[in-house]
């Protein structure tokens, strides 16, 4: 073997050994008397030292040598491992790592000679004497240890064997380059495509021989695909292995005591995903130790054990991997985050007050948001949590945070198993096929042509379907993608309707497509940068017939269709579901806070959307507030202006919104074919109520008052409101009809 080949092997081997050293040293700290572990550490260092002496890396050898001397004394029981020793030994591991890097790039072990580190290591050998200059003991280790060292390496299956000591239980492995695996994966991807094509052809040809062969081919390809996928799978333990060290360093740095526990180390993930989540996870772990877990004294006062507990947990669930990072630390204070968020101008005070605890906690994932009282060198610099979220979302994952004040925090990361080949549902729309990732798919609903017309109901122009009693908003793929003949298909239901029920974030919606084809395994190919701006597609794939199909990005599509993301309707809609009980002659209202804290309502069926606009988007058209909304000019009607006394009105009308105020809440309403926005203070809820307890209106633009949830609520008279605001003029008879909530 050439010398460069030997060096290469030495590097690869040593890197693995060093990673093990990190783990073992931290393990030793808990159990300093563990002779076997000490011997293991000693042998690893000894092997490194021996090899680099042979290869002529003198500086590296010197550092390893003093480390070995210290370890000799520890192993022989002349010294006991203490934190100072561990720290010094870990620094030695870092130094060795640094030099290996140097060797990798330059072929030499570098300029630094680590005199200080060597001195520390030497001094630690003689704690009592403190004699830094004393000559280290002779280093030659006894022969039996030597052979054990090789045996150890053999067990990790990384070294060519000294045959005599081979253990029968060790599985046989060979080292394979990652590039080769990637290539294999690509080829298998191609094979899967070819298989799909073959299946399609064989289905149209009457030839039993061909069909038999293609069936076998199908089975083999599927199996091969599974196996090759497995070669890329790595246990998450690989990246967790460094966490005990990370936790130790951070904990020591801020004077805390932390124990780390891991569950589900063996949970496997695709290599690319493992790499992508390494940094986010490291950040979360550091964060937990730095901010989550309290100082020992504080913990004792709170009646907790001195040492904080950090638990990493990984498990498979529904084709996804869940990773949880929980600590039993101080937890997050919702109020503190609220305060901070308002200070930073992330939300207004009112919005903050209205948010649920969970929403508040998830604010910390916003850019530039940090609740750390003081900035440490670990975290609290206002970068991080948003990067964590972005990185996890980049690979199709989700981050969620739960916390109880005083009891701890849990961050849950949900990520897909693999990105390369995914099961997907193929649908057709306007002659083109689209693939929908199975992960987003909940169920399929087919409506016969004769039922379709009655089954799909309209909420003032917005189609919905009653799925087991709950309203499912419908999104027409044709319309969203602006495909041909959108107009002619949109309103008419003369054909059977196919609804694909999808999950986006935590909402559900029904996607109406022309045809539902089949489930298929598809190979995901990313979109090029020319198409990166199109958020509705997650990628593309080649179908069985060789044509390209686009993969729908369900979340992107949902955002485009305003099912999620643009509005604040989430909590309201959830409450709505609870309040659905005895559905008699009830009507559904949207409740919001009107002037002076009074409650007001509008019938839900005229509501198109709930929106939030920053005041900077509000423009003046004459004396009217307007904003640009979906390519149209949306007039904004302000309750304050319409309902206030006349003399105030004119002045208020002419004033643009104060530029420093928070975003405004707008109900986008459809009335008589016109769309306008109603600016309100605060949205409260969506409720079902009987509209029979009512009394006469006390002011203009109010139809009548009624009791909803034991509180008197004014129902707005929309046509009157528009008339006063000067937005629209509608004959009064029609107006009453439109506003008088007909369901």
């Amino acid at each position: 073997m050439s010398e460069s080949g030997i060096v290469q092997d030495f590097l690869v081997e040593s890197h693995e050994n060093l990673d093990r050293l990190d783990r073992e040293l931290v393990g030793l700290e808990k159990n300093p008397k563990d002779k076997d572990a000490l011997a293991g550490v000693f042998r690893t260092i000894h092997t490194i030292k021996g090899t680099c002496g042979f290869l002529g890396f003198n500086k590296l050898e010197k550092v390893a040598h003093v480390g070995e001397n210290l370890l000799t004394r520890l192993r022989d029981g002349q010294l006991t491992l203490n934190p100072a020793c561990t720290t010094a030994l870990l620094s030695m591991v870092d130094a060795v790592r640094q030099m290996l890097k140097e060797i990798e790039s330059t072929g030499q072990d570098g300029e630094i000679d680590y005199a200080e580190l060597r001195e520390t290591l030497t001094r630690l050998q003689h704690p009592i004497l403190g004699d830094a200059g004393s000559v280290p003991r002779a280093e030659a280790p006894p022969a039996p240890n030597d052979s054990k060292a090789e045996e150890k390496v053999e067990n990790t299956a990384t070294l060519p064997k000294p045959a005599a000591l081979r253990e029968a239980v060790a599985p046989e492995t060979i080292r394979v380059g990652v590039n080769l695996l990637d290539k294999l994966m690509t080829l298998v991807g191609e094979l899967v495509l070819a298989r799909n094509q073959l299946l399609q052809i064989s289905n149209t040809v009457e030839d039993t021989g061909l069909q038999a062969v293609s069936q076998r081919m199908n089975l083999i390809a599927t199996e091969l695909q599974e196996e090759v996928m497995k070669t890329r799978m790595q246990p998450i333990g690989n990246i967790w292995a460094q966490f005990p060290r990370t936790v130790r360093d951070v904990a020591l740095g801020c004077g805390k005591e932390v124990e780390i526990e891991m569950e589900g180390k063996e949970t496997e993930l695709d290599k690319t995903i493992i790499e992508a989540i390494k940094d986010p996870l490291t950040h979360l772990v550091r964060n937990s130790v730095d901010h989550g877990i309290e100082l020992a004294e504080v913990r004792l006062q709170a009646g907790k054990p001195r040492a904080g507990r950090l638990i990493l947990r990984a498990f498979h669930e529904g084709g996804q991997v869940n990773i949880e990072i929980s600590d039993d630390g101080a937890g997050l204070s919702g109020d503190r985050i609220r305060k901070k968020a308002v200070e930073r101008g992330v939300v207004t005070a009112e919005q903050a007050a209205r948010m649920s605890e969970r929403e508040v906690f998830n604010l910390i994932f916003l850019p530039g948001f940090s609740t750390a009282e003081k900035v440490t060198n670990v975290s609290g610099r206002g970068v991080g949590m948003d990067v964590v979220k972005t990185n996890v979302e980049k690979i199709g994952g989700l981050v969620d945070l739960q916390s109880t004040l005083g009891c701890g925090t849990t961050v849950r990361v949900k990520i897909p198993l693999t990105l390369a080949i995914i099961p997907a549902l193929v649908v057709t729309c306007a002659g083109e096929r689209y693939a929908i990732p199975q992960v987003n798919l909940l169920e399929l609903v087919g409506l016969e042509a004769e039922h379709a017309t009655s089954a799909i109901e309209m909420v003032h122009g917005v189609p919905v379907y009653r799925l087991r009693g709950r309203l499912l908003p419908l999104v027409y793929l044709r319309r969203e993608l602006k495909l041909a003949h959108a107009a002619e298909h949109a309103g008419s239901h003369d054909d059977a309707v196919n609804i694909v029920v999808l999950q986006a974030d935590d909402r559900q919606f029904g996607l109406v497509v022309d045809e539902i084809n089949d489930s298929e395994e598809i190979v995901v190919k990313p979109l090029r940068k020319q198409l990166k701006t199109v958020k509705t597609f997650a990628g593309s794939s080649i179908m069985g017939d060789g044509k390209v199909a686009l993969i729908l990005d369900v979340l992107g599509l949902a955002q485009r269709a305003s099912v999620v993301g643009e509005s604040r309707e989430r909590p309201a809609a959830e409450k709505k579901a609870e309040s659905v009980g005895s559905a008699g002659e009830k009507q559904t209202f949207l409740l919001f806070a009107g002037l002076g804290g009074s409650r007001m309502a509008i019938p839900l069926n005229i509501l198109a959307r709930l929106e939030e606009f920053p005041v900077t988007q509000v423009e003046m058209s004459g004396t009217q507030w307007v904003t640009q909304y979906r390519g149209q000019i949306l007039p904004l009607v302000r309750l304050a202006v319409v309902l206030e006394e006349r003399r105030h009105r004119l002045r208020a009308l002419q004033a643009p919104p104060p530029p420093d105020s928070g975003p405004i809440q707008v109900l986008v309403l459809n009335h008589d074919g016109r769309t306008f926005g109603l600016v309100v203070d605060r949205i409260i809820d969506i409720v079902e109520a009987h509209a029979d307890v009512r009394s006469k209106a006390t002011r203009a633009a109010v139809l009548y008052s009624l009791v909803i949830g034991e509180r008197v609520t004014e129902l707005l008279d929309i046509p009157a409101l528009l008339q006063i605001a000067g937005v629209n003029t509608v004959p009064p008879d029609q107006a009453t009809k439109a506003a008088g909530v007909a369901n």
Partner: protein
Amino acid sequence: MNHTSQFCTFYLDKLLFGVELKTVQEVIRSLEVTQVPLAPEVVSGLINLRGQIVTAVDLRRRLEMEPRAADLPVMNVVVRSEDGAVSLLVDEIGDVVEVEEASFERPPETLRGSVRTMITGVHKLKDRLMLVLDTEKACQMAEGMVVGQ
């Protein structure tokens, strides 16, 4: 000594364009194009080039020229770009020409707008002009580019 370089030429409308031969991966007849809804108008769609998915850019639209008549045949000039292969849709393929540096001239000052960034200059051939196209620029899509209906 005159430095020469080779260009792959093609026609758009009646204009002759040239791209440096070394950037061209291959030239192929029209392939089936999968349209991408909501994509910028200049993106004609995606094509399957032997298992590789390639974005097809309608060069006429990219250069703000008259759209091609629907019955005209299309050729794909597949070029290598920073971001992988991109297919440029053109009307007709011309010859590979070898030109000398001396015949090159900067585009006239009167050539303006976004087109100017894509046309780096003109080679004066014997009987006509060859416009030199910067394929990297042509493949770049500005954010918020006109979205096709």
